[in-house]
């Protein structure tokens, strides 16, 4: 049972169309996300799910459509602006900073909150040092939460895949986001790792009230933890509703299982 009731619409995607040259990645997609909910985006491979997240994040610019975040409407998002507004994300292919340790990777997520300037950082006196320590404390809380204390000084490139995914999540959490976009956070994990990750996602949603938009392939996970689901196929929206509604939608079934002729 959720601690917080679902709030108003926090993110509204309207009529987004995105194409690369002749390839139409997204066609006229509209859906909304309510505050504190867990919204899943599902669909076969190539349906455009990651592209949708990339549009929200400002990595891609859609040709048509708008995105409204907390009442402000944008035709195209600027990555930095989006981050400042409190949207964080993880990546399907783990865009971690391979040359840095786990601690540094997660600390890099705090950079928007750093106030000291270049000179103060160079001298590393008083306020600059205090700020480093404050952020370190925050990051250590996240490391605790994700149970990766033993690896904090390890270069991320040396960690196994499952742990790297946790670091990716940690870096997104370090931004103290209001909306968390997770791109296949459980890909490539075994049952236990998936359970751990589910637990993290639910805890984040419960304790911090973070709204979660989640791309996932594992139907069991999706049906279990999400409040509402959007289904994409070939760049078009073919389903939108609660997990039960979507499960029984004939179009969705045929997209996944194929139809008999």
């Amino acid at each position: 049972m959720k601690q917080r009731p679902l709030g108003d619409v926090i993110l509204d995607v309207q009529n987004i169309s995105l194409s690369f040259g002749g390839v139409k990645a997204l066609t006229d997609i509209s859906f909304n996300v309510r505050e504190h909910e867990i919204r899943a985006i599902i669909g076969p491979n190539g349906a455009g799910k990651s592209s949708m997240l990339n549009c929200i994040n400002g990595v891609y610019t859609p040709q048509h459509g708008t995105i409204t975040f907390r009442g402000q409407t944008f035709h195209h998002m600027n990555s930095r602006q989006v981050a400042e507004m409190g949207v964080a994300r993880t990546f399907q292919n783990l865009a971690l900073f391979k040359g840095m340790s786990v601690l540094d990777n997660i600390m890099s997520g705090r950079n928007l909150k750093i106030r000291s300037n270049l000179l103060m950082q160079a001298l590393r006196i008083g306020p600059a040092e205090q700020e480093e320590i404050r952020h370190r404390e925050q990051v250590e809380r996240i490391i605790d939460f994700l149970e990766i204390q033993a690896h904090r000084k390890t270069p991320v490139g040396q960690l196994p895949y499952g742990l790297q995914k946790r670091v990716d999540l940690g870096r997104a959490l370090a931004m103290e986001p209001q909306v968390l976009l997770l791109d296949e956070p459980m890909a490539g994990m075994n049952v236990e790792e998936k359970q751990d990750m589910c637990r993290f996602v639910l805890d984040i949603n419960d304790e911090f009230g973070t709204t979660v938009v989640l791309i996932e392939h594992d139907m069991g996970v999706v049906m279990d933890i999400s409040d509402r689901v959007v289904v994409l196929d070939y760049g078009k929206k073919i389903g939108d509703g609660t997990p039960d509604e979507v499960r029984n939608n004939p179009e969705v079934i045929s997209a996944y299982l194929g139809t008999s002729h």
Partner: protein
Amino acid sequence: MFYRENGQFKTSYKADQQIFPIAQDRWIIVALIVFAFAGVPLLASDYMFRAILIPFLIFSLAAVGVNILVGYCGQISLGSGAFMAVGAYGAYNAFVRIPDMPLIPALIVGGLCATAFGILFGLPSLRVKGLYLAVATLAAQFFSDWMFLRIKWFTNDSPSGSVSVSNLQVFGLDIENPLSKYLFCLGILVVVALLAKNLVRGAIGREWMAIRDMDVAAAVIGIRPMYAKLSAFAVSSFIVGVAGALWGFIYLGSWEPAAFSVDQSFKLLFMVIIGGMGSIMGSFFGAAFIVVLPILLNQLLPLMGELVGLEISTAGISHAELMIFGALIVWFLIVEPHGLAKLWSIGKQKLRLWPFPH
């Protein structure tokens, strides 16, 4: 046995984040610095100062600057020679044209000129990377070559095209003999290296490394690529500019534009590669290597030649130098792309366990 960290528990984040967390390291560094300031002057000859130590100090400084740009921020630069030149001529003009200009402010002015130049020629980094960026930095190099050769104002309308400085003083003390030059450079190096280390282990350092490792992801967590890249160019060229000014003022005394040609740029890049990219300490290793190697070869090769009955001319030595440089670059890139610094830290790891094998 000697290098164990047993009992060194950190009870505060401040302690955990310091530059040398292991106590033995701290003692060694302090001892090294004390030796550099007090011991070396007693032991080194004038030749050692002039031929080895002073170039080592100045190149270390420049290598730190280049490492920040290339190693930490991942922006390839083949224009470091130009930044040194701008620093040198900037400092020269400040020194010569402004009456009673003291030395250190003149050096800083040189550094600031290099910063402006660096930011200007760093703008292409916002559009391109890798080889393409290297070409853009080469544009800076050749443009600077031309600028200081053809625009007479920079060289104070000197008829021969070369400039010179003399009567250098700091706080009333002359720095004309090799010992005082050495101490001056050492002081500047220690201060700048400390500031640089603070930068790279702080927030801006993480931004630089994030841009280096994956700039799209960096943008998504809110890092502004423009600010990060240009700040790397700015800080790097400031340091390299000051090093260039020191090179001209302290080491050469009088110089012409050819002193800062594209060969210098390559040299600095090699120092960073061999020493270790993304490592302040590596910059020192690389500089030491590049400074000492030619001298070593100069002594060793004729000896080895005698053993085999070959006579090796000075030209032969310089050709051999080229070959050995090239081979070493390739060898390092294949075997240990993280350079001497990585070998050093592997060595330390083994030392921590010694005498146990694992």
